[in-house]
């Protein structure tokens, strides 16, 4: 199939970007979206032009490194699908596709479709862990955890840190990302001890990084490739308020 692409090109964080038109022919329905971009880049190389830079790595939907806005939607039209797992059978011959980076103040553009998501790491650094030193942990079965609890914890832990939630949110809020980590750890008995401290430091860091507030539109859950529930935001708010009260 032949496609008309409008792709965001931007040299660096401080330069001005623009949408640039490209045409691409010979796309097949079995190709992944990123393989389509590979094909386009190959043609740019032959024209001796600079390639379109985009983030990607595992190409199997788990590393969380890929992610672009496709026709205004984070990771494109399919539910619970990363950009790398989107295949061209979702498009038809003659389509025009708008491709832009995930945009947020806390995600500055590095170049073209590549963005800087270090702000996510900074939130985890602030407290997104259980303070267990390595090497000398107690016997695993000495902490029984109910099947339901561990499954609920897993549902939140499945977050791949891609940033689609932030990109799709009109406030550029990281509430789903942070809520997922809070929920993952706060549900587990071994994570409960630091739960109050954790939620306060992580939320504080989230604000410092320049993410917006959550206004409960729930758009993030719709675009999340792992289908993380917005209930994890509620859990975060519950843990946060509880921690504030306990602090006083």
């Amino acid at each position, binding site marked *: 199939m032949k496609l008309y692409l409008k792709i965001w090109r931007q040299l*660096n964080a401080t330069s001005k970007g623009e949408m640039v038109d490209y045409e691409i022919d010979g796309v097949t329905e*079995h*190709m992944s979206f990123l*393989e389509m971009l*590979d094909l386009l880049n190959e043609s740019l*190389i*032959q024209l*001796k032009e*600079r*390639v379109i*830079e985009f*983030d990607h*790595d*595992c*190409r*199997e*939907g788990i*590393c*969380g*490194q890929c992610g672009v806005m496709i026709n205004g939607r984070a990771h494109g039209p399919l539910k*619970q*699908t990363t950009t790398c*797992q989107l*295949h061209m059978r979702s498009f038809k011959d003659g389509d025009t596709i708008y491709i832009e980076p995930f945009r947020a103040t806390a995600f500055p553009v*590095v170049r073209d479709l*590549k963005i800087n*998501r270090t702000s*996510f*790491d900074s939130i*985890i*650094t*602030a407290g*997104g*862990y*259980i*303070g*267990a*030193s*390595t*090497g000398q*942990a107690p*016997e*695993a*079965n000495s902490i*029984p*955890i*109910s*099947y339901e609890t*561990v*499954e609920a*914890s*897993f549902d939140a*832990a499945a977050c*791949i*840190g891609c940033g689609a939630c932030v990109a799709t949110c009109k406030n550029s809020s990281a509430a789903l990302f942070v809520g997922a980590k809070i929920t*993952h*750890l706060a549900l*587990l008995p*071994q*994570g409960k001890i630091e739960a109050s401290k954790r939620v306060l430091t992580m939320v504080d860091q989230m604000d410092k990084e320049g993410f917006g507030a959550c206004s409960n539109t729930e758009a993030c859950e719709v675009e999340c490739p792992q289908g993380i529930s917005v209930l994890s935001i509620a859990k975060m708010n519950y843990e946060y308020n509880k921690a504030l009260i306990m602090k006083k």
Partner: protein
Amino acid sequence: MIDSKIPDGPLADKWNTYKAKAKLVNPANRKKLTIIVVGTGLAGSSCAASLAEQGYNIQSFCFQDSPRRAHSVAAQGGVNAVKNYKNDGDSVYRMFYDTIKGGDFRSREANVYRLAECSASLIDQSVAQGVPFAREYGGYLNNRSFGGVQVSRTFYARGQTGQQLLLGAYQSLLRQVNTGKVTMHTRHEMLELVLVDGKAKGIIARNLETGAIERHVADAVVLATGGYGKVYYLSTLAMGCNSSALWRAHKKGAYMAGVSWIQFHPTCLPQHGANQSKLTLMSESLRNDGRIWVPKKAGDDRLPNSIPEEERDYYLERKYPAFGNLAPRDISSRAAKERIDSGHGAGPMKNAVYLDFSDAIAAQGKKTIEAKYSNLFAMYEKINGIDAYKEPMLISPAAHFTMGGLWVDYELMTTIPGLFALGEANFADHGANRLGANSLLQACVDGYFIAPYTIPNYLSGELKATKISTDHPAFAEAENSVREQLNRFLQSKGTLSTDYFHKTIGRLLYEKCGLSRSKQNLEEAIVAIKTLKASFEKDLLITGDDTLNSELEKAGRVADYIELAELMCYDALQREESCGAHFREEYQSNEGEAVRNDADYCYVSAWEWKGLTNPPELHKEPLVFENVELAVRSYK
């Protein structure tokens, strides 16, 4: 003569003996020492976190935008550990034996025993970090069985075990970033190792965001940079996985061992077209419930559901009744290749076999199967548009794991003093074939439980060494060689992209040094690689400049792949036997099974770089088996 430094004494006591005698560094002195850790997968993150907790300064590097993206994240099925929770006869010795046998008796007894010995602690460690392993209703940990073994010792977190283990290690790493003991360098690629007086003292890294070339100095360097299966281009690996850190260390004097021992994973999605960039892996755990078959009749074009039961060949169950669909990976992959090559392949390109869940769904119900594998079935449908609850999956073997890597001794130190290699980057534990769910284990055990003893043992001798700064001439020299190579790439005026060369070397290796090898093919490959190398130097085309430039990054990696590919062929050619994943067509039984030659090849092949124009030099580390009897590896 290379010294593997295996401690004396009975097998079961070796590691405890080592730990009891290893030299320590006083807590007050640890803050005077810096360790560079390249790679933030399970091995790198766990090692960096553990050493930082002890009080050392860590400089951690990854080429991805976040340490959490490292390819450990992609492992699906599980991690092995001797807990014997199922009370089904597991023990350290049994796991040791399974791993030695799985590796076709081409690994070190002492290393493998230590791996099994430390495995139980890893589960404890991960649970403490909050890894949500599958549980039974009573709240205790659940596990399942995996290829090549007859007990249930595989712990799992749905189909995302690697991701969950990595998040545990990543969070421990960032906890140390918070304390200031770890400095993270994301989007950085190591391009050269710096040696001072023969010891590893630093690296040259390129900041991939700005293009800046940076010098980093340390008292020891750890490479935890993963495997190089991406040399085949089409593989289960991430696009950025590469061999450059290993290869550049190799060219500085570190030996490479078992270089051509590459595992082809039997349950991957087959290739469907020329522009394909990767072969997605479907967890081997699927083989617990899926049955593998091909049509009995060659060239059968019917859809799978219209081929009646009696016209299906469940070839693994037929050839290996004791293990059936759970036969080890090398055997399963080779059996699939044999069926495909003989014209029984399924799918549009006739390059696949069926993995069928209809019997399991009938016996256990769709709900049970969904609970076990829903994410894998969903992934399959996303990629192929096919519902595998209704129609069998199409699967095919793909390049996956490198048993080979940098040669290391018992302390995980390479032949360069102060340079350590952890996880898939070293060759140590898997012999000629890795058992499923042993890879996450090895990466974690190396980082959490071994390096924290062996690296301080080395560093204790470095406390009194003269401190080096990045002004040392060795840094200038290393930096110049990096700059020269980058400039050469940028000035290239050819017509062919890096991807062209990568795809070409990959195809060549699949054909000549893949699932099966022969003297003739390997000799042809060595000639073809030399031609390709000359073409790469003359015909490469790179656009863009020396700032952020993904084509420039790829050029360096592909240049290294081409040289590595040549060494792989030398390694495969020299070893005139079949063992594990290394199947030489000349050395097989009448039934097509691998025939090992213990009299002549019971050693590790460790290769030394001798310059661009000379062939590599072979060093042999004899493998001594004192606790197991060398047996024919049968899964029948």
